[in-house]
């Protein structure tokens, strides 16, 4: 399925804190993701990156402003959304097969059809032979593959990824990043990839959005004009990569420092 565009217009999201106060996660955030584009969002800890994804997915409602998917305002979970969560979100009581087949089954497919589709996706993420395992019997990297297959089997037009690989070791992570690029190339879905790792963002994305320290808003947008297909492990050595990195880091650094000072202050109080 072709990717769908995403548009956020002056979006603000406030949460009520348990103490009765109000916490503003993002303020007046405007950004756009073109159909089929791979967009990475970077920013310091607590800048509202995950909140942005929650708004696009329809899991949270915006307090002000507009969130549009394919030109339609988001109310409820839009069709064709995939979401890969930061922590483990695979169902521990389902086998690998059951986990991957969940999407089609919820969509109304018979268990037989769903399982057949799931088999294909399990093979595509390299987990053939592990169909009957439970998540606790898999490594962290394998569980992430299950999560990927679980999302991609629904042919999402938009794939939202919330620091999906942050819990993995560096080698596994590079492997997974390459696999993600290969899978994405085959689907042409739009991707919003949230990460705090600038190298990962540049290696994967067409465009990198830098967010300010919370309440988050867009500080700058950078096109990544590195050729595709890319090999994530090697692209870091290209001179152009270093140039882009420097340009983005000069903006990101200030925000990271602001966030760091705040955390120190909060810890002192």
């Amino acid at each position, binding site marked *: 399925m072709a990717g769908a565009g995403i548009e956020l217009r002056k979006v603000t999201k406030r949460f009520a804190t348990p103490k009765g106060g109000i916490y503003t996660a993002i303020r007046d955030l405007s950004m756009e993701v073109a159909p089929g584009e791979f967009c990475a969002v970077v920013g310091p800890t607590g800048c509202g990156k995950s909140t942005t994804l929650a708004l696009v997915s329809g899991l949270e409602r915006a307090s002000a402003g507009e969130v549009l998917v394919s030109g339609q305002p988001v109310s409820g*979970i839009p069709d064709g959304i995939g979401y890969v*969560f930061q922590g483990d*979100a695979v*169902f521990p009581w389902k086998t690998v097969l059951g986990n991957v087949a*969940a*999407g089609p089954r*919820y969509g109304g497919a018979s268990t037989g059809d769903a399982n057949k589709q799931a088999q294909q996706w399990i093979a595509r993420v390299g987990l053939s032979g592990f169909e009957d395992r439970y998540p*606790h019997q898999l*490594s962290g990297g394998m569980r992430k593959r299950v999560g990927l297959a679980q*999302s991609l089997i629904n042919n999402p037009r938009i794939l939202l990824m919330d620091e999906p690989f942050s819990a993995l070791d560096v080698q596994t992570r590079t492997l997974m990043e390459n696999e993600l690029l290969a899978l994405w190339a085959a689907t042409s879905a739009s991707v919003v990839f949230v990460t705090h790792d600038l190298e990962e963002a540049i290696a994967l994305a067409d465009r990198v959005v830098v967010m300010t320290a919370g309440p988050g808003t867009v500080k700058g947008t950078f096109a990544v004009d590195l050729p595709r297909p890319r090999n994530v492990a090697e692209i870091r050595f290209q001179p152009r990569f270093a140039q882009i990195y420097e340009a983005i880091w000069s903006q990101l650094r200030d925000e990271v420092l602001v966030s760091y000072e705040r955390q120190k202050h909060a810890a002192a109080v």
Partner: protein
Amino acid sequence: MSAQGGAPPFDSVGTQDGATGALATPTAASASIDSELSARRAAAARRRRLVIYALRVAFTILWLGSWELSTRLNWVDPFFVGQPSGVVQRLWTWITEGTALGPLWLQAAVTMQEAVVGFLIGAALGVVFGILLGRIEVLAEVLSPFIKGANAIPRVVLGSLFAVMFGLSLWGKAATAVVLVFFVVFFNAFQGVREVDRNLIANARILGADNRRLTTEIIIPSAMTWILASLHISFGLAIVGAVVGELFGATAGLGQLIYNAGHTFDVNGVFAGMFVLAVLALIAEGLISALENRLIKWRPSRVSGEIPI
């Protein structure tokens, strides 16, 4: 993937010169070291188990022995505290000649029937209401003071009420068991529903699960760990309910047997009845554990060091 599950750490000692050595498939030598290690581990675990059993036997001898001895030497009066040999004798008479109320197995069967019926009804109600109130917040808010109030009163006294309502039949005792079991299972099921990982719910919703699927495929399996844990405690409570129910009026059952023994100053009979109850409760506990292992086979297997209490 294979790189992660690679050679054990002590392997790299011999291959400092090249990183490739560490990634090579395990050799025959390292395989035999592995098997030797695991054999040694198994032997150590066996030894430890034997020591534990030996200590248990020693504890039993010390406990029963000191009891028997202190009554034999008349330090304490066996009329009031009983005597292990007397308890064994009483059990033997019950088994060979039957009790004052009829054969022993019949008393056990009556009590277990009351307990099991009460347990099943109480657990079923607890699960249903726990999930219902866990899912529907308004309902939980409206009913919470009533439930907390009902939980706060000593519910065994309801046994007398049930004895009036149901007479000498099974239902009076089963009802007492129900009110004891219900609250334990209810609170656990409720908590279990409340504690479901928010990520899992979000994931299921994104994948397209409707409310019904969310309940049957996410909420209930997730709460199952809590519910099954509560079943362990609540079967013991079901037996308490049945026995207390029998105290308020019954013609048969272990509770009635114990009650009779107490009234005839037969302390050994009281202990013998308690012993039979304990054995039955342990068997039921074993059955529930077996059920638990079947129902949640997705959970990591228990750590061997965990003490099964």
